[in-house]
């Protein structure tokens, strides 16, 4: 399951859209450029995959005192 440790960096994508519109000569809509910037934003958001381990041993100890 994927989750993001710093999702606030998604706002950077909006800023990049503004930059692309304001400075058209940067041609940020070109596929390679858009992919590079998209991956950069994704890295800043720190995606994490939670994997289940092989398992764990569960030990249950019961006190033998009568009061327990």
């Amino acid at each position, binding site marked *: 399951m994927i989750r993001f440790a710093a999702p606030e960096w998604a706002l950077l994508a909006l800023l990049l859209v503004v*930059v692309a519109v304001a400075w058209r000569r940067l041609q940020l809509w070109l596929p390679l450029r858009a992919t590079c910037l998209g991956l950069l934003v994704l*890295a800043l958001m720190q995606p994490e995959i939670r994997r289940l381990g092989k398992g764990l041993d569960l030990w249950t100890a019961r006190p033998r005192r009568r009061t327990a």
Partner: protein
Amino acid sequence: MSLSFANPAGFWALLALPILLGIHLLQRQSRRVVTSTMFLFDTLTPVSVEGRRIERLRNSLPLWLQLAAVVLLACILAGPRWLRRDSSQRVVVVLDSSVSMGAFRDELARALPAHLQTLTRVAARTEWHLLETDPARPTLYAGTELDALLAAAKAWVPHLGKHDFAPTLNVARGLAREAGVTVFVTDRRTDVPAGVEILAVGHPLDNCGWVGVSVNGDRWRALVQNHSATSQTRSWHIETESGASAETSLTLAPGQIRTLGGTLPAGKNRCELVLSKDGFALDDRLPLVRPEPKRVALAVNGDKSWDAFFNHLTGSLPDVDVASGTARADIRLEARAPAPAANPAEGRAIIFLSAPNSTTNLAGEPLAENNPLTAGLVWNGLLCKQTDPFMHQDGDETLVWQGDRPLIFLRGGRAERSLYVNFDVRQSNADRLPAFVVLLNRFVESIRAEKVSFERRNVETNQALEVAGDQAGPPLGMSGGGDASRAPFSPGFFEVRQGDRPLLEGAAHFADARESDFKAAETFDTLEGKSSQMAARNSRDDFLWPVLALALGALFLANWAATGRGPRGVRGGVAG
């Protein structure tokens, strides 16, 4: 705080630098542009006139921006982390005490420092523990010096056969706790409890070796097995103090067991069967001694009606002598009437009930008590006659009941313990019942084991030894200074003495075929992920990494701005 990298492989991205320079060395392909006039073209120096060919590297802003971007990207991919100064970890290394590990001592000496030094780098302070899976052995090392741990591991000698690792691994996990690492060093893939990492240092060996021997008089028979997956050829010979026999070649198919036999060298009590050497040395030599068991002296005391039974019994007992008098006897065979002779016997004895003939069968099914003498014996089918019994006394230890009658019982203290057969054997089918015959043999063997006398026998390595000594004498001692309660760990000859008196001369041979089989041995480890996990636990991310990422994005934008200016295709460079 010291800088470390969670993913040093990220620096492979620096290989993009020469690729980038190579691309910049190429001339850019000229493009045809249709124009209405040529008057402005005199002032423009052509950037590229020859197409895609190598030319001199030109200094340009896009080149430097792209080089800087590659370096920045490599730094980000390497994952810089700052190790916390207060970080500490406990690493518990558990060595597999199986003797098969002895074949990989060199591999262990190479692998252990390399992997443990990796763990050293993931915490500011590391506490080391070195254990082995033999729970009877003490901790090999505990402290903060890795070099001392490695020295202890180098001096360690595995000595056990197949055994259970779980108790020691559970102890190790308790020592390591959640913030530590438990590393199990073995030579093959095995199931371990959760949280235990494996460092396996083995590899398949083409091993052939001796797996067992029996000696009967002068004749010996030994088993040799090919444990490998391919056909193997070896040679073998017999060695004595005075020399060696000629080599005999031997070819074994995969997994084949062959029986070899021969006669012990005349006049020699010791010899060794020697197989040509391979990667596992323990089963290449098989020491032998000419067996000389302790003999038990029997005295027989009964009327003529018992002669046939006693002759039959003494003939079935191995290594016994029938003594003429009772004074020198280790055990007496005696037939007694039920009353009044119910007193304890003097010395060890087997007392048989001698009663008048009866026609009534004893009622009920025989039932055995839980005792080493009766373990595993089946008494169903025993038929006895109803006769007057021996009178029960306090302290009697009943072995077999029939109804409420103690059918067979022990009487007397340790020095005078006697076996009472409380039914008339002559009027029963007991002498044809295996359980009865085995019980009598076990009782005689227990007396033989307690007899203080010299014996010579062949045993397996690390086998428990029961050597009877004089209670009032000095403690038993093993030749070479080892523990007299167990045979040596390595194959060889040994002697157990009490003072100057030799009690046991033995030959210990290795016969654990499971440890000789190296087909499943392999090299692997599960530590790589663990060291990254420990590094993450004991360090924190470089707080500047978002700044580095943003700088990388800025370099991208600057590069695209630089390459996108002016007429398309004229400014050259790699635009991306």
